[in-house]
């Protein structure tokens, strides 16, 4: 007895000493203090830089531009929003929203099987391959990828060559002859814009979907089958409702990224404007900051409505 107690000292061990030691003790006694110190810088960053600039933008959109001098008139007015709703501008908004919607749906359809495989079956090496395969395209420059697609989709490009070798060129020509989606070649058609959008944003759909699917316990799928549900019924009644928050998260990425992008439709597509291109043009060459700001508010409002609808439809009930 006496030997062991003299060897290990008293009931309380000596402190670590120094500033580090007393700080550790202080934080242990007041965990809120540590939380406060850790959260303050990022919250300031988010609050001031992010939300602050967003707020400044919102205010800008309520200013207007003096048609003669081209100067911004710092008086609150709805004149700029009136301008936003002119048919030519409304056209841009509708075109962008339809494109974003189609890109989101296509991404979701392509992403689901990949995400499902990764969540349910991939283990070890296969899992690593999955992450690598999904992330690898994100590591290379966005511009390089888009110009690569220009080469793939151009009239004398890779895709055209493959179709030519297969004697299927008439398929491309037939598609390009269609109104709205067609054009002179894939690289200057809305179809081309759509393909590149889907390619570039797909990882942003796969990753949240995979995370959501991974959180659905296997025994719920077994329970569903046990109660008589075919795989299709299990998908509709159990898997999809439980993975829906992930699908929504992914769709927020693909939808909002498409709404805001101005480079892809400029390099691959027709001369018709998208919201991002309109913002770029108005704040740059045209110098109409208020209208550019008003255009930027559009995606924010659309995303707000989208989330509200998703919540009402019960998409987040499983959270």
């Amino acid at each position, binding site marked *: 007895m006496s030997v062991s107690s003299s060897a290990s000292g008293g009931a309380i061990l000596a402190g670590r000493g120094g500033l580090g030691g007393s700080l550790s003790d202080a934080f242990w006694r007041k965990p809120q203090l540590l939380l406060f110190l850790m959260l303050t810088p990022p919250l300031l960053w988010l609050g001031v830089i992010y939300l602050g600039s967003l707020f400044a933008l919102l205010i800008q959109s309520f200013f207007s531009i003096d048609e003669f001098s081209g100067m911004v008139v710092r008086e609150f007015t709805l004149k700029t929003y009136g301008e936003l709703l002119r048919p030519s501008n409304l056209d841009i908004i509708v075109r962008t929203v339809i494109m974003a919607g189609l890109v989101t749906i296509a991404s979701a359809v392509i992403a689901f099987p990949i995400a499902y495989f990764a969540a349910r079956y991939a283990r070890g090496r296969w899992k690593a391959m999955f992450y690598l395969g999904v992330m690898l395209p994100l590591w290379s420059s966005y511009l390089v990828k888009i110009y690569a697609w220009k080469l793939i989709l151009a009239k004398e490009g890779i895709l055209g060559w493959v179709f030519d070798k297969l004697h299927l060129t008439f398929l491309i020509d037939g598609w390009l002859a269609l109104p709205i989606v067609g054009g002179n070649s894939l690289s200057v058609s809305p179809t081309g814009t759509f393909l590149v959008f889907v390619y570039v944003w797909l990882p942003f759909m796969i990753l949240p979907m995979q995370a959501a699917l991974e959180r659905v316990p296997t025994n719920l799928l*077994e329970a569903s089958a046990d109660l008589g549900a075919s795989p299709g019924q299990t998908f509709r009644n159990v898997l999809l409702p439980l993975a829906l928050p992930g699908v929504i998260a992914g769709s927020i990425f693909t939808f909002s990224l498409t709404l805001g992008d101005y480079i892809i439709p400029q390099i691959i597509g027709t001369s018709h404007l998208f919201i991002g291109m309109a913002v770029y043009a108005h704040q740059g060459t045209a110098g109409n900051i208020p209208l550019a700001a008003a255009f930027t508010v559009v995606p924010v409002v659309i995303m707000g409505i989208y989330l509200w609808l998703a919540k009402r439809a019960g998409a987040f009930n499983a959270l």
Partner: protein
Amino acid sequence: MPHAVSFQQVSRHFGAVRAVDAVDLEIAPGEFFAMLGPSGSGKTTCLRLIAGFEQPTSGHIEIFGETVEGVPPYRRNVNTVFQDYALFPHLNVADNVAYGQMIRGVGKAERARNAEAALEMVKLPGYGSRKPGQLSGGQRQRVALARALVNKPKVLLLDEPLGALDLKLREQMQEELKVLQKALGITFVFVTHDQSEALSMADRIAVFNEGRIMQTGTPEEIYRRPKTRFVADFVGSSNVLPPKVTQQLGGPAEWSSLRPEDVRLDAVSGHEARVTGASFLGSATRVTLDVAGEKLNVLLPSGLAVPEQGASVRFSWKPDDLHLMGTDA
């Protein structure tokens, strides 16, 4: 009448692991059948083979006379109460219970009625609108039971359904399950690692070890006449005595089992042994004796004087209680 479930030489191997190894099994209709064994003994895999979540590597399975190899779970008239209940978190209790009927296309009003009736049966009337997350473990267990029973399955499979409940609740549920099973007449197949649960609830028990069935029989048979050392030790922790010791106690040179509660400490007659320890269990005291180098546990009913450690005592038993298990048990 065909068996409710029959296994003929059924094996399920996962790579080199023989989870289930050449199992023969027959479960009678309306029987409360327990599969008892330590974890990893193959009992849960057997249950999953009946449910259809696993397919046998070899062998033949029939449910009520119908071959089920290649039949998916959703086409088997068998329902499962899962170990962790597996309630759908996005559906309320009523929709969970009505799930099977919703899948089968039963009308809304009718399935709501049936779900409420099933909830009444498990003593949770009026809980339909709650979410599973708002229920206690015991309540979830009852919902899982109602969700399975409302479909009136031919066989109900229960995978350690009481494992997560505290002792009091477990004893209460054991009784209720037994009453329910008798009232409904449905064949219950119950997987457990708790030997007292199996003994108190089942009509018959199969004791599993390392993917094989060691013994099948009524609780009485399993307890009184274990066939192997493993069964004797696993069910009721009997004293398993090697041939040499059996011989010293006046028996033949065979392995034998002597239940701790069948041994009496008796000052006048019997064999002599030394007391090596004693632990108080509440209703009894377990006294450990040293008999020819082997440990022998004795259950001493409370109220009797507990001998001191190191004391020399005499012990005896009724001739029938020394159960012989052969030379290679």
